[in-house]
């Protein structure tokens, strides 16, 4: 008789004792295998039993009772035994058994669904390769809900900030808040609630995570000659978020297959895949087209917010002129004269508006950061 269940109890090994369960009219008989031919038998009444679902997929029927040797826990998976058990048990076990059956049915259904998704994904990635993958990436990105994007960005953001010296209040924070407010109120149908944090560090950098989490380093603020320059960088970063550039990169890196899986409704799979491939959100580099898009959309946003866009251009120009200092923004944002030139051209094409200055005094903001403004020749 080959075993059809595992029995757990104090004297059994932790992996469980293989046993043969037989369902009788009044209860269960459990025969344990033994090396000396005739095995040990135990019997129990239905009235002594409690049942639940258990195991890694909750698809085992777990039956518990107590006898003189202590607690017994039986893990049943064999469909024949489970069927026989269901038919024989008295009423008091009906309700819990029905719950277990429902749970097992759900697990099976989910598995079918999941494989359906995978099958569909494989099929359509072949199709996707044929039709062009960029469209697919775009469709996949557009299917990812903003809340999910926020969850992803927020965990990276919080984790990053716990290791940083955050500037919590003062003129620098007030200034950045004013810039953010001026910019974000010009965004139509904005699904993001942007959070901008000032972090004390000499690196000349700022970055945006998917979901609208932005970090500006004090090094960047010290380097800038006026608020408009910082606002320019901020506007650029906000547009990386608005255009969902981070997600596009992630979807591209994890591959077409995942992109298709996302289109087919499995958005959450992405995080798992990302972790597997070791993509690090904080070091995500954008593509050249994405940078250009963030520049141009950033410029338009500045214009709408009545913030002088020449600050942005000027800052880019200065960054491209010299490589001194730890220009971290440069490592993710290769500056070229061409980039500033393109923006100049674009700006000339936009309708002229009269800029409205910020309410803060930039020299004061910089003084609050603890060092003299960097003199720029």
């Amino acid at each position, binding site marked *: 008789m*080959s*075993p*059809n*269940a*595992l029995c*757990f109890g*104090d004297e059994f*090994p*932790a*992996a*469980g004792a*293989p046993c043969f369960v037989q369902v009788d009219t009044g209860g269960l008989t459990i025969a344990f295998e033994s090396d000396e031919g005739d095995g040990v038998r135990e019997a129990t009444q239905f009235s002594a039993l409690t049942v639940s679902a*258990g*195991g*890694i*997929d*909750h698809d*085992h029927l777990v039956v518990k009772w107590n006898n003189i040797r202590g*607690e017994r*826990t039986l*893990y049943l*998976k*064999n469909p024949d035994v489970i069927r026989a058990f269901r038919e024989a048990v008295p009423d008091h076990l009906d309700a819990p058994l029905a719950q277990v059956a429902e749970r097992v049915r759900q697990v099976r259904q*989910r*598995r079918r669904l*999941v*494989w359906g998704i*995978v*099958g569909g994904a*494989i099929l359509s990635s072949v199709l996707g390769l044929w039709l062009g993958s960029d469209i697919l990436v775009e469709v996949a990105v557009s299917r990812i809900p903003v809340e999910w994007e926020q969850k992803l960005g927020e*965990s*990276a953001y919080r*984790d*990053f900030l716990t*290791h940083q010296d955050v500037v919590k209040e003062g003129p620098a924070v007030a200034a950045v808040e004013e810039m953010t407010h001026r910019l974000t109120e010009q965004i139509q149908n904005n699904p993001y609630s942007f959070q901008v944090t000032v972090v004390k560090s000499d690196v000349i950098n700022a970055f945006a995570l998917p979901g609208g989490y932005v970090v500006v380093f004090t090094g960047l603020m010290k380097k800038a000659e006026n608020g408009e320059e910082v606002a320019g960088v901020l506007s650029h970063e906000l547009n990386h978020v608005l255009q969902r550039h981070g997600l596009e990169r992630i979807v591209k890196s994890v591959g077409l*297959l995942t992109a298709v899986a996302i289109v087919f409704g*499995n958005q*959450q*799979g992405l*995080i*798992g*895949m990302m*972790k*597997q491939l*070791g993509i*690090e*959100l*904080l*070091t995500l580099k954008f593509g050249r087209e994405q940078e250009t898009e963030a520049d141009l959309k950033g410029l338009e946003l500045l214009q709408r917010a009545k913030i002088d866009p020449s600050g942005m251009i000027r800052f880019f120009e200065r960054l491209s002129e010299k490589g001194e200092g730890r220009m971290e923004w440069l490592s993710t944002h290769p500056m070229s004269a061409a980039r500033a030139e393109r923006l100049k051209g674009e700006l000339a094409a936009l309708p002229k508006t009269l800029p409205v200055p910020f309410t803060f005094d930039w020299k004061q903001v910089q003084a609050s950061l603890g060092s003299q403004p960097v003199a720029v020749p």
Partner: protein
Amino acid sequence: MKSEILYPGAFPMVRVELAAGENIKAESGAMVACSPTIDIESKMEGGFLGALSRKFLTGEKFFFQTLRASRGPGEALLAPTVPGEIAILELDGVNEYMVQKDGFLAGADAIVIESQMQSMSRGLLGGEGFFILKISGKGMLVLNSFGAIHKIELKPNQEYIVDNSHLVAWSTTTSYNIEKATSGWVASFTSGEGFVCRFRGPGLVYIQSRNPGSFGAWIRQFIPVSE
């Protein structure tokens, strides 16, 4: 079929003796040496979709090899790629194990290997990836680990917390929840180790004493980067 672990410790091999006509499944690339009576067939386990899913989603295990003693009795020597211990488990038809994709080295012909998709939250957060192997059936199962292999025995409802990158295999009678690691467990979000598994018995959990991801990161610092 008889099997024996040679050179137990960091650099072991398994010797499997096959009677005429017997065969064994082995991870592709596990074969070190064999008698001339043994034929190697590459075979997809679990049909087309199963093989595809393994290829795409759990790494290279597109094919398992079948080593068959078709021309008389013989033996085969098998070894894993990474340094680490080997454990041999005997499946009796009722106990089943979930095995992390790199943990499978070989198994008797009568064991059944399925690629299984983790539930969303597990695949999402667990380091073992979206697909793992579910191994059932009857006969020998050979696991390999990175570092030493350690067995944790859990009584019913007994709990144990494991860093998910150290998991090798676990009984299907266990259940687990993924939890965010508290600060003591983890360096940073980006190290990819932010989660631990809280296992609940009954059953066995096999863990490895080294974390492949951390080891890779440690190695990388010595590799000169060319710009």
